[in-house]
């Protein structure tokens, strides 16, 4: 489980450190305060299988579908578009008694080109890619005693994979696994290669992708878990099934009518809950991030939904990071977790921008309870 997160010069966050993360973490704050950026950092840190794809996904989820051969693609990840300072993302992870720190440094790679404007020729430096360095340290980076660096790998990524310049060093590992420039990273680094699901607010997963996730669980004998969770929002639902169509697989639901209905036609809330359910059930031992957790959901289902999420997260050892603007959503999460007696699992963090800095305000379940009792603002 991730115990802490540190971010430097990433997106709109100059420097942020979050400590004592829980199993269920609610991310709060005004618009553009950095809630989504926290989730993006975690998305990049967890599985270093194809960071270029991860970077593409993050910009795409933001609606910033720009090609990787544009300097802006790379610069958009740097704080204030300023690529002279490296991005540093760091998590402290506890796996049983083992504590280690994983760090990702992102350095901009610039190329000098001649830019001709009329008769004037200017030297122009533009970002053509990034150097990514993953490092694993054994122990706690925040303790006085320096932890032992156990492995490190750097790779360069740009838009033209064939031209990728690679740096590969692993002086701490005798026999690193290494395939190609976007392939496997060292086995040691992959020790924290956990399943990660990022349910962005805007992007709707395709029905085919959801059908694949559904089938994976169904084949694994976990159909009942999906059905029970889906009945929270649609009590009439009797059965779920995947059907092959000319344009891919589709999940259908049986509402007791003559004809099965595609889940995606049952409404935004049903689709959203299906995405959440499939993400959590497929992320055993990993992390699930839910942006705008209240999105598409009627308040009356929130407590039941969050009871299911909290119970499943504990059972499957999943860590949840849910961003929300909704007071009633926070209240429902708290009520669900309190009803289950899991209050130690719950933490909330609000990100307050004060000039260039970001203040992290943390809430325990007890503080949230007091806030709700008094009706005080906490978002």
């Amino acid at each position: 489980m991730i115990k802490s997160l540190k971010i430097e010069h990433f997106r709109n966050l100059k420097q942020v450190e979050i400590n004592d993360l829980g199993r269920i973490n609610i991310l709060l704050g005004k618009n553009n305060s950095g809630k989504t950026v926290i989730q993006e950092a975690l998305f990049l840190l967890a599985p270093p299988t194809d960071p270029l794809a991860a970077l593409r996904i993050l910009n795409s989820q933001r609606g910033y579908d720009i090609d990787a051969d544009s300097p802006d693609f790379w610069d958009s990840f740097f704080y204030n578009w300023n690529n002279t300072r490296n991005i540093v993302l760091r998590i402290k992870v506890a796996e049983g008694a083992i504590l280690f720190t994983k760090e990702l440094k992102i350095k901009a790679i610039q190329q000098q080109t001649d830019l001709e404007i009329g008769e004037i020729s200017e030297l122009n430096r533009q970002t053509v890619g990034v150097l990514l360095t993953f490092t694993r340290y054994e122990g706690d980076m925040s303790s006085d005693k320096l932890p032992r660096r156990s492995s490190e790998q750097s790779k360069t990524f740009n838009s033209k994979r064939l031209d990728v310049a690679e740096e590969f060093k692993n002086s701490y590992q005798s026999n690193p696994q290494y395939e190609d420039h976007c392939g496997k990273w060292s086995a040691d680094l992959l020790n924290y290669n956990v399943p990660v699901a990022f349910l962005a607010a805007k992007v709707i997963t395709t029905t085919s992708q959801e059908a694949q996730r559904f089938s994976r669980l169904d084949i694994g004998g976990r159909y009942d878990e999906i059905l029970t969770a889906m009945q929270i929002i649609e009590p009439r639902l009797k059965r779920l099934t995947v059907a092959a169509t000319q344009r891919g697989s589709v999940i259908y639901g049986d509402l007791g009518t003559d004809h099965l209905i595609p889940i995606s036609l049952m409404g935004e809330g049903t689709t959203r809950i299906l995405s959440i359910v499939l993400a959590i059930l497929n992320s055993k031992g990993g992390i699930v991030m839910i942006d705008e957790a209240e999105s598409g959901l009627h308040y009356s289902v929130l407590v039941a939904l969050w009871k299911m999420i909290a119970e499943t997260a504990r059972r499957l050892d999943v860590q949840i990071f849910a961003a929300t603007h909704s007071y009633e959503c926070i209240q429902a999460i708290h009520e669900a977790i309190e009803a289950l007696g899991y209050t130690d699992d719950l933490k909330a963090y609000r990100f307050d921008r004060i000039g260039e800095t970001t203040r992290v305000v943390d809430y325990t379940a007890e503080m949230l309870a007091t806030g709700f009792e008094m009706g005080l603002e906490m978002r």
Partner: protein
Amino acid sequence: MTKKEAKTKPFTIEKAKLLIVEGKTDKDFFDALLNSLKRTDTQVIPMNGKDRLRALLEVIVRQPDLPVQSLIIARDADGNPKGAFDSVCSALSNKNVGLPAPKKPLEFVEGPTSFGKSIKVSVIVIPLFEQKGALEDLLLQMSADDPLLSLAIKYIENAIETLKKAAHRPPPRILSKAQIHAFLATFEEADRDPGIAALEGVWNFQHFAFEPILKIVQEM
């Protein structure tokens, strides 16, 4: 939705001066005091039980855009004036609150906060000057010149004597509360509690017994 009604519009502390008091009666009383001073820059909120102070402060200092620059916490001394003061100071200096705590009641201390602003903090232990008791004891002092109060006090004394002899039921647990309620029963609207009475102008905030509180509130 649930057993707890969703509050979609939570309230915020939006004034620069904040007075935290024990309960609704105290809130009404201090609201009346501020009205009499024509002060609109101060917000009064109840802690709803003195054991809740630390928890309340933990949430207040975490409020987004908290504007508070001056804070007074007022609570009853009950049977232990020093213990009451120490308890408030302990809540103030708790690691999850991090507010400056004064060395003694009715004094301001100024210091930094976790929410980025400096704050002035003071504590009022009622009824003042290390006396045991509560708000009603202070109200007895503030109304000492009213002949009706003497009659009310006498009535309660007689009632207690009668109860002791006849042993019908236990006498009032807190004498000052019984005396103040008997006193308030002599007014035209006989069912007022001390807080509502304050809002209706029954208490004389200029009375010398109230002067230390008046002074510290004016200094906020």
